[in-house]
């Protein structure tokens, strides 16, 4: 990649004023080392982090007393979104998102990030003004990064023309498809972006060249391209297939409900097909023929890992073909242990006045986690039915 290996030498010339680095070193200021101590707990951010904020946040999360102000600040930012009167309503959202990303370095469920992303993208998806706003697109892409299966998100963006002028959209979309071994589809997305002159086109072309190089280097593979844009299935499907013929598979093996549903429910989904043709000319058509409702996220498929362990010898698994009593629902029953401090926190919040119109409620951690989990599985679950590609 880099071929510039020319050594450069810079004589200490007539430099009167110190450059910021020398000044920083001379100042004897120290950068804390929390970032190194807790490095496993920090999710790298594309734009990088401010180390001082990072250190402060890491410190705060290790002490419960220090954590409260963080949570309070978060709700303050959320309220600021609600009360914003200015001319750029996306701005307070971005401020909130940026702050939460910095202040919750692990970015886990309790950060509420996924919920905030979702509410942000949902607040503006119909807004003409933000359609081509790179900042808005980036929120979508962050959201996509955080979901189990981002197919649905990219298809939605594609169908609604969100971010279609930016090469970032095509690069992320294509990389996503590539990561699922859909090379042909990825190739199409690159082509589409280039034909639409997405900006910056140089970046897009460079990414495309790299993609081509990678696909050349790739050992001969079965290219399952577009016709298989439906969520790829594995493991459970293979087992279930044979059984499908005579009877419905066991619930534990039925990791792929949508395969069946696609066929039986073909009619309701056909609504989504027609409008697409009016979109862009050319070969590309956003793939909308597949189910938007039953996404079959990873958690759906990997049921075996969620099942409650029990004695195998003494317990007989009830053989109830066709019913879907997933391990996931069962596991929800396990009572979650709540620390005393957290209980305090919850009651504190309950006391606080909840503005009903406030979009993000000051949910306690449990709600936040549940909502996050649901969104990860089905990113567009809160979108009105008719907003999905018409």
């Amino acid at each position, binding site marked *: 990649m880099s071929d510039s290996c*020319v050594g450069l*030498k*810079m004589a200490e010339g007539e430099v009167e004023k110190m450059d*910021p680095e020398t000044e920083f070193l001379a100042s004897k200021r120290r950068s804390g080392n929390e970032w190194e101590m807790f*490095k496993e707990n920090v999710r790298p951010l*594309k734009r990088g982090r401010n180390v001082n904020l990072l250190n402060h946040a890491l410190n705060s999360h290790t002490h419960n007393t220090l954590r409260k102000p963080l949570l309070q600040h978060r709700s303050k930012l959320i309220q600021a979104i609600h009360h914003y009167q200015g001319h750029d309503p996306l701005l307070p959202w971005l401020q909130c998102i*940026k702050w939460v990303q910095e202040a919750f370095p692990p970015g886990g469920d309790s950060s509420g990030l996924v919920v905030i992303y979702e509410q942000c993208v949902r607040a503006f998806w119909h807004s003409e003004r933000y359609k081509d706003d790179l900042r808005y697109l980036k929120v979508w892409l962050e959201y996509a990064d955080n979901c189990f299966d981002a197919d649905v998100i990219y298809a939605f963006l594609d169908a609604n023309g969100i971010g279609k002028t930016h090469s970032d959209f095509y690069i992320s979309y294509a990389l996503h498809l590539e990561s699922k071994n859909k090379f042909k589809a990825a190739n199409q997305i690159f082509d589409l972006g280039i034909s639409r002159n997405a900006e910056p086109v140089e970046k897009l072309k460079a990414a495309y060249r790299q993609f081509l190089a990678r696909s050349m280097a790739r050992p001969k593979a079965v290219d399952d391209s577009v016709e298989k844009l439906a969520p790829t299935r594995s493991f459970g499907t293979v087992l279930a297939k044979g059984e499908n013929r005579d009877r419905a598979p066991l619930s534990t093996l039925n990791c792929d409900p949508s395969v069946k549903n696609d066929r039986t429910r073909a009619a309701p989904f056909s609504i989504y097909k027609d409008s697409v043709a009016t979109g862009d000319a050319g070969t590309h058509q956003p793939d909308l023929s597949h189910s938007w409702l039953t996404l079959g996220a990873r958690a759906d498929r990997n049921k075996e890992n969620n099942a409650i362990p029990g004695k195998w010898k003494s317990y007989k698994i009830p053989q109830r073909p066709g019913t879907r009593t997933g391990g996931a629902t069962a596991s929800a029953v396990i009572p979650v242990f709540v620390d005393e401090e957290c209980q305090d926190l919850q009651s504190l919040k309950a006391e606080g006045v909840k503005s009903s119109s406030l979009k993000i409620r000051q949910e306690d951690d449990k709600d936040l986690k549940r909502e996050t989990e649901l969104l990860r599985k089905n990113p567009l679950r809160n979108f009105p039915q008719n907003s999905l590609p018409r």
Partner: protein
Amino acid sequence: MAARTVAKDIITLRGSAAIVSEFFGYAANSILYNRGVYPEESFVKVKKYGLPMLLTEDEGVKSFIANLTAQLSEWLEAGKLQRVVLVIMSKATGEVLERWNFSIETDSEVVDKGVSREKSDKEIMREIQAIMRQIASSITYLPCLDEPCVFDVLAYTDKDVAVPFTWTESDPKLIANPQMVKLHSFDTKIHKVDTLVSYKNDEWDEP
């Protein structure tokens, strides 16, 4: 017995220059690997400083770093090296994205009078190890380099040093308004090396 232990911990200017220039070689390799400037496959693992370290197998980079460390070693022995900066730039635009700054303070008495100092190898290795660990974990705060990058090495020397054949004068390649993180230092008692990384904190929400 006691005398022998003492003898082992003596460090000369030459020895110190060797340690420091070798450190630069490994540090540069490690940065190029960890920051993904070159593809992962072009590196091999070796054991050094009690850590698994990665060295490039790319012939071009290999000889570049070999020449670099040889030259640095020469300057270090003369006590004329003040700073070495590894700069990572965008290949497309040439924009400076990241600077790894190693500032060197040399004990001038050692250079002028040829005396030696005392410090055990083990202790120096431990200090270097801490820096290498930090380089590897810097991903926690550094921005992701999602475009092809190139690197350059800047050396700041005393003014009286002639520019070697393969080197050229350069501007300082600074980053405007950078984020800076000071990493650990190490000290051979002859050369003290301070490490700092500065980077462009991308404003994600700029329109």
